[in-house]
C-alpha cells in the first residue's frame, strides 16, 4: 500500500507541476475573443425574447421614470407616480393601539435587512404616537409554505387590524393573500407582487424593467459601439430579477453592444470574482451590468487583480460599491431599487385606519445614484456599514443613525 501511496502522491504533484510548467512556452498569440465559448447562446428562458418580457409593462415603466411623482419631494416614501386613489372610509376604525401584522418573506439579504430596520424604526414612531399597540411579525425565511401558514395564522387570530405582506413568490402566495382579503381586514402588499388586486394597496418602486434598462442605457451611452459587456445575474426564475435582465437584454439588442456572457452568481463574491477573472482571461471586458449590487466590489477587484482598466460599471446603491466607485473614480452608476419602500406600508396602514385615501397601486419613485450626487450620498452615509443601502430613507427617524450603524 505504502509504495502505491507514495507513487500517487508523487505523480499527482508532478502532474500538477508539469501542468503549470509546460504552459510557459504555450503560444502567446490568442484568438481575439474566443468565438466558441464567448458568444453566449441566448437561453429562451430569459431575456427580451422570453415570456418574462411584457412590452406593455416595459413601455409603462420606462415612461414612469420621467413622470413627476405626486407628494412631498423630501419624503419620497410618501410620493406616488400616477396614483389612482381608492376610498378607504369603510375601512377606517376609531381609536389607537392597533395591532399591525406583518408577514415578511425573509431578511435573507442585506437589502431586506436594511429595509427591515427602517420599517421597525417607523413602527416605533407610530407606537410613540399611540397609533400602533402591537407589531406582530412572522418571518417566513424564504419558504412559501411557511408564509402561507403565517398569513393564515394572522387571519385566524382575527385581531390584526391590518395585514402587511411582503410575498416571497408571486403565484404561490396569491391564494393566501386573497384569503386575507376575504377576512375583511385591510391588506397591504409591498415589494414583490401577487396576481390579485384584492388588497387595498400594492406598494412598489417603478419596477424591474426600469431598473434593468437604466443600467443598460448607461452602458450604451458610455461605451463605444462594438464594446463588450458581461452581465452578472443573481438567480434565474425570480420575476423582479428576470424583468431587470429582460429589459437590459432589450436595450442591448437594440444597440451595438456585444454581450459576451450572462452568468449567474448567487450574489457570492468569490464566485463573481472567479467568473469575471475567467472572462478577462478570454478577452477584454468594457462594461459590467449587474442585476443587483451584491458583490459588485469583487467584480471590480477582478479587474484590478488582472491588471485591466476599470470597466464602465452598473452597480447598486450599496455602500461598499459606492465607496469603491469613489475610490477608483471609474465611470459607474448606482442603480436603485428604492429601499425606502419599507416605510411606506406602515404609513399606508395609518392612513387606512384614519380613512384617508391611498393609491390602489402605489408606485414609488426609483432614481439611480449618478456621479453628480455620489459625494452627497457618501457623506450622508459615512458611518453606515458597507452592506447598507444609500437610499434607505430613514434619516429623519428618531433611531437614526444608531439603528442602522449598530446592526
Amino acid at each position: 500500500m505504502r509504495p502505491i501511496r507514495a507513487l500517487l502522491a508523487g505523480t499527482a504533484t508532478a502532474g500538477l507541476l508539469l501542468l503549470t510548467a509546460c504552459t510557459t512556452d504555450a503560444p502567446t498569440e490568442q484568438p481575439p475573443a474566443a468565438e466558441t465559448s464567448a458568444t453566449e447562446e441566448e437561453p429562451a428562458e430569459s431575456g427580451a425574447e422570453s415570456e418574462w418580457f411584457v412590452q406593455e409593462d416595459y413601455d409603462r415603466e420606462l415612461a414612469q421614470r420621467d413622470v413627476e411623482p405626486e407628494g412631498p419631494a423630501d419624503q419620497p416614501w410618501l410620493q406616488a407616480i400616477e396614483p389612482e386613489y381608492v376610498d378607504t372610509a369603510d375601512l377606517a376604525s376609531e381609536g389607537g393601539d392597533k395591532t399591525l401584522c406583518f408577514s415578511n418573506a425573509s431578511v435573507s439579504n442585506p437589502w431586506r435587512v436594511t429595509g427591515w430596520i427602517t420599517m421597525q424604526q417607523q413602527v416605533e414612531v407610530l407606537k410613540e404616537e399611540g397609533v400602533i399597540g402591537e407589531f406582530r411579525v412572522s418571518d417566513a425565511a424564504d419558504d412559501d409554505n411557511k408564509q402561507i401558514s403565517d398569513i393564515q395564522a394572522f387571519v385566524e387570530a382575527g385581531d390584526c387590524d391590518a395585514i402587511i405582506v411582503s410575498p416571497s413568490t408571486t403565484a404561490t402566495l396569491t391564494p393566501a393573500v386573497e384569503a386575507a382579503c376575504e377576512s375583511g381586514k385591510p391588506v397591504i402588499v409591498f415589494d414583490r407582487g401577487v396576481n390579485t388586486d384584492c388588497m387595498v394597496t400594492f406598494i412598489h418602486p417603478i419596477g424591474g424593467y426600469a431598473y434593468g434598462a437604466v443600467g443598460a442605457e448607461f452602458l450604451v451611452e458610455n461605451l463605444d459601439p462594438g464594446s463588450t459587456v458581461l452581465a452578472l445575474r443573481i438567480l434565474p426564475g425570480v420575476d423582479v430579477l428576470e424583468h431587470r435582465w429582460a429589459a437590459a437584454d432589450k436595450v442591448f439588442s437594440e444597440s451595438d453592444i456585444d454581450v459576451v456572457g450572462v452568468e449567474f452568481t448567487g450574489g457570492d463574491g468569490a464566485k463573481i470574482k472567479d467568473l469575471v477573472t475567467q472572462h478577462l482571461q478570454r478577452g477584454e471586458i468594457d462594461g459590467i451590468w449587474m442585476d443587483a449590487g451584491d458583490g459588485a466590489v469583487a467584480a471590480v477587484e477582478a479587474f484590478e487583480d488582472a491588471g485591466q482598466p476599470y470597466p464602465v460599471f452598473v452597480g447598486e446603491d450599496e455602500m461598499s460599491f459606492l465607496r469603491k466607485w469613489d475610490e477608483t473614480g471609474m465611470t459607474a452608476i448606482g442603480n436603485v431599487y428604492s429601499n425606502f419602500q419599507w416605510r411606506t406600508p406602515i404609513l399606508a396602514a395609518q392612513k387606512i385606519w384614519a380613512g384617508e385615501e391611498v393609491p390602489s397601486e402605489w408606485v414609488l419613485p426609483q432614481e439611480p445614484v449618478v456621479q453628480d450626487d455620489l459625494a452627497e450620498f457618501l457623506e450622508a452615509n459615512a458611518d453606515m456599514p458597507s452592506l447598507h443601502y444609500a437610499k434607505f430613507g430613514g434619516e429623519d427617524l428618531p433611531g437614526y443613525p444608531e439603528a442602522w450603524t449598530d446592526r
Partner: protein
Amino acid sequence: MTTGLSQETAQGTARGTARQWRERLLSGGSWTVLALLVVVLVVIVVINPSFAEPVSLMAFAKKAAPLVVLAVGQYFVIVSGEFDLSVGSLVGAQVVIAARLMDGDEALTWPVLALMLVFGLLVGLVNGLVTTLLRVPSFITTLGMMLVLFGAIRLWTGGAPTGALSESFRVLGRKGFPDVPGQFQVPYALLVALVVVGFAVLLMRRPFGRSLVAAGDNAVATAYSGAPVWWLRTRAFLLSSLLATVAAVLIGGFAGVTAQVGQGLEFMAITAVVLGGVALGGGRGTVVAAMVGALALEALFTLFNQLALPSTIRPAVQGVIIIVAVAYAARRRRT
C-alpha cells in the same frame, strides 16, 4: 537472436506496464479522479487555449486553493469515520466575525487572526467532544453546529455582515509574488495550500495518521489495540476546524465579505473528498487523492463556465458526474 529476445521481453513488459496502468486508471478510486482531472483540464484547454497560460493557471490555483484546504480538513474527519458538515458555516462565521471586529483597521489584523484561530479550535473541540464523548452521531453534531453558527451569525449581525477586512488580512487570499497585477505571479494561496497538503501527507505517515485510518476502518479493533479512538477523532475535528479557519482567511482575502460567503462549502468539501476515492465511513483513501478531488471539482466548475452551460442545468450535471464517478470508484475490482 539475443537482441530479438530482449526486444520481445521489453515489448512484453511494456505491454504489461501499459495494462497495469490501464487497470489502475480504470480501477476506480484515486487514479480515476486523477484521470478525471486531467480529462477536464484537457477539455478546458481545447475549448479555451488561453487557460493553459501561466497567468490563467495561477488564477485557477488561487481560486481552487481554499477548497483544497477544506478538503484536506474534511479528509481527516471522513477517514476517521465521521463527517464535518459545519465547515461551510464556520468559514462564513469566521469571515463575518473578522470583518466586523477589525473593520478595516490594519492594527487589528493579527489579534483578530489569533481570535479566529481560537474560535476555530473551539468549534472543532465541541464537535469532537460531543461526537466522541456524548456519542451523538457526527452527522447530527456538525449539522447542529452548522445551524448554530449560521443562526448565531445572523443574530449577531442582524442578517447582513458589517465592517471590512483589512488590506493586510486580504494579502494571503488575494495577492502573490511578484505583486504586479495582470502579470505572472505565484499566489500566496497556492503556497498555503501546498504547505497544508505537505503537512497533511507527513501527518498521515505518522502514527497519528495510521491510527486515524485504523479508527475509521474498525473503531473497536483500534480501541482494543490501545489507541484512544475518542481523542483521535477529536483531533480530526480540531484539524478540520483549523483548516476551515485557514480557508476562511483565503476566501475572505480572495473576494472580501459578502452575505453569502461560505454557503454550501461543506458539501463541496465532502464531494471533493469522496470524488478522491475516500470512502465515507472511513478507513480508506489518501489525502493527496482528496486534494486531487478538490482540484477536479473546481476544474469541473471552470469547464461549466467555459462551456457557457446554462446555470440552471449545472447542479444537475454536477450531481450526475459525482454519482457516476463515485459509483465507478466503488465498483469492485475485477481481478
